[in-house]
């Protein structure tokens, strides 16, 4: 009897090992890891993502294959979602159903990210949001197969609000785009300003999208607030900054951009934007590691990377490593691996992906240099403060994501 049991155990072990052997070769759907970058290739946000995102993704794939000596085949496909939710969801569905795409990255506006996430969840594929900013992505709408990598509005608004008050900007006036996004940006920031002991003197709402901000800016000027918070985005932000400079508001009162990118500063020029505060999750000229990577990026793209593009590289690399470590491209296993492995590269130090999918990493409070302070092209920011990861994300207790409530 004992002998027989022994035999069965040995046989089981043998077959077990035999069954395990191919698993080490990585079980891949379609024999290939297919990454889809769904981004804005031609519209408003193509500067901060667009072609640069594709360059970053390609770099990540090439570097991964070189470092890991071609463990499996990786393919990259891309499409333009035109910043429309329905176009994005249509394309994502097609990629998942027909082309066998395993992971979709970038997703520049919140409407596209929120549209693609449930489709990916339904089909058991991974989404890694880099471009979009809404806190809903890891809030009410969170899924266990999504990672929100680069930044969100909370990090930027709270980061800027808290840090600017600390620097002495304790009276605020808000210029707010009149729709849900602007309202929530204003609310998040004014909450932190008052919590830090600052005062909110008032706010004015402008129609979205707006072109003429003169009457709103004059209100902000007459409020006498030290800081004018711009609770808007994209061209609304750049237009209000330009017009604030034209009215002579900016040298006396300072502006705080609550959602801005280095490419906005680049197109505004330092003459117009100089002196204002903003928060980003990445600045190319921060450390040797960021400079080294950014130089390689610059050689290919002729522009310095934004935090979105840097995030694409870092997240794609992290994803591919997780696929290798998990030995499969099955979404649940890969995302589990991604959450269990800390991120340590030029983009994030000791970054950790929380259960709701948010990558916790440091942010930087930046002040735009005045023209005389800048040493050359793309030398745009003073890093005024490093905002630690713990302060830059919605506290788990306040999150609306059910995944954090276990």
């Amino acid at each position, binding site marked *: 009897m004992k002998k027989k049991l022994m035999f069965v155990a040995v046989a089981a072990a043998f077959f077990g090992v035999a069954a395990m052997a191919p698993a080490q070769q990585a079980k891949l759907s379609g024999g290939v890891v297919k990454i889809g970058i769904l981004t*804005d290739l*031609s519209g408003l946000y193509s500067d901060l993502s667009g072609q640069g995102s594709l360059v970053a993704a390609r770099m990540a794939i090439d570097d991964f294959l070189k470092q890991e000596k071609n463990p499996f085949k990786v393919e990259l496909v891309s499409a333009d979602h035109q910043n429309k939710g329905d*176009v994005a969801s249509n394309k994502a569905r*097609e990629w998942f159903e027909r082309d066998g795409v395993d992971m979709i990255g970038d997703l520049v506006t919140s*409407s596209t990210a929120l549209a693609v996430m449930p489709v990916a969840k*339904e089909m058991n594929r991974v989404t890694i949001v880099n471009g979009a900013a809404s806190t809903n992505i890891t809030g009410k709408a969170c899924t266990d197969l999504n990672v929100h990598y680069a930044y969100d509005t909370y990090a930027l608004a709270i980061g800027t609000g808290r840090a600017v008050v600390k620097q002495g900007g304790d009276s605020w006036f808000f210029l707010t785009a009149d729709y849900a996004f602007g309202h929530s940006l204003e609310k998040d920031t004014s909450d932190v300003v008052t919590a830090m002991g600052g005062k909110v003197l008032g706010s004015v709402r402008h129609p979205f999208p707006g072109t003429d901000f003169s009457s709103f800016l004059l209100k902000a000027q007459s409020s006498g607030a030290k800081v004018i918070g711009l609770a808007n985005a994209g061209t609304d932000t750049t237009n209000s900054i330009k017009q604030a400079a034209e009215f002579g508001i900016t040298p006396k009162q300072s502006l705080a951009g609550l959602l801005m990118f280095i490419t906005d500063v680049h197109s505004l020029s330092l003459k117009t934007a100089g002196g204002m505060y903003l928060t980003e999750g990445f600045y190319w000229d921060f450390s040797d590691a960021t400079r080294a990577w950014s130089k390689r990026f610059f050689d290919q793209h002729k522009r310095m990377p934004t935090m979105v593009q840097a995030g694409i590289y870092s997240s794609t690399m992290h994803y591919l490593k997780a696929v290798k470590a998990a030995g499969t491209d099955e979404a649940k296993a890969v995302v589990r691996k991604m959450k269990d492995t800390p991120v340590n590269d030029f983009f994030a130090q000791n970054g950790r992906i929380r259960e709701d999918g948010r990558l916790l990493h440091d942010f930087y409070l930046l002040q735009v240099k005045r023209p005389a302070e800048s040493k050359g092209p793309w030398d745009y920011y003073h890093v005024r403060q490093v905002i630690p990861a713990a302060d830059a994300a919605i506290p788990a207790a306040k999150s609306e994501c059910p995944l954090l409530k276990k």
Partner: protein
Amino acid sequence: MNGGHMYWGFAALIGFGLLAPVAGIYPTFLMKCWCFALFACAFNLLLGYTGLLSFGHAAFLSVAAYVAGHTIRNLGFGPEWGILAGTLSAGVLGYVFGSLAIRRAGIYFAMITLALAQMLYFVWLQMKFTGGEDGLQGVPRGMLFGLIDLSDNTNLYYLVFAIFLAGFFLIHRVIHSPFGQVLQAIRENEPRAISLGYDVDRYKLVVFVLSAALSGLAGATKTLVFQLASLTDAHWHMSGEVVLMTLLGGLGTVFGPVVGAFVIIGLQNQLADKVGSWVQVIMGIIFVICVLVFRRGIVGELGRLLKRPL
């Protein structure tokens, strides 16, 4: 007038619809095409057969999309009830918009519908349940009549095709009914229709409501296909797109809007990866060429060659 060639046309349409997914054409793409084809047919009923150019039809598409999405996702309606609720709300909205707009004719009619639709756009932007600029996502496809699983693409495809056909044949019936003949009389010569004793405003209002409700049917079905409703549906671009589909396919023809919808959606789908937002410019160029070279549209010109109305 209504000769045998029409039946060949219907047979070809139904045959294509039944066989296309089997032949390997991507079903989600086809479903989108059928939704827009229905939308364009509903629009054609108004512009092509009654001569009323509404520039605010996106309003009806969007109200139905949002209502269907909200009722299915938040109130737990089945898909058939969600679509019904969406269609009804579009009809009610059509009654409100129509009662105001038909008091004026021509360019003023177009401007009133545009203005009302723009107002609605900003309402959607501000409302809570629509999700503002993020849109309303994650609408479950559910079980049709509690029996048929719509998360299966094939099942959903044939439902969408059936809805399209129902709408299409309803429009066809309306056009060829005495009511439809009066509509065409209004299009040709409104004062004469009045002098013959027809209550023109009443006819206009009824056809406006009908067109709005059918646009709503298309919008609600689209929500079920993509599982989302977004501001794109309410934007005036959408109102323009449906004009383009109808004109390109052939104004006042039975099959024209269907062809137009397939051409436009197909082009958008093909070009999206390659040229991105330049699609808009290309659409504009196509529109200009259409107006300059073949003013009757694809099906209209074809009908002229065959010397038969299609």
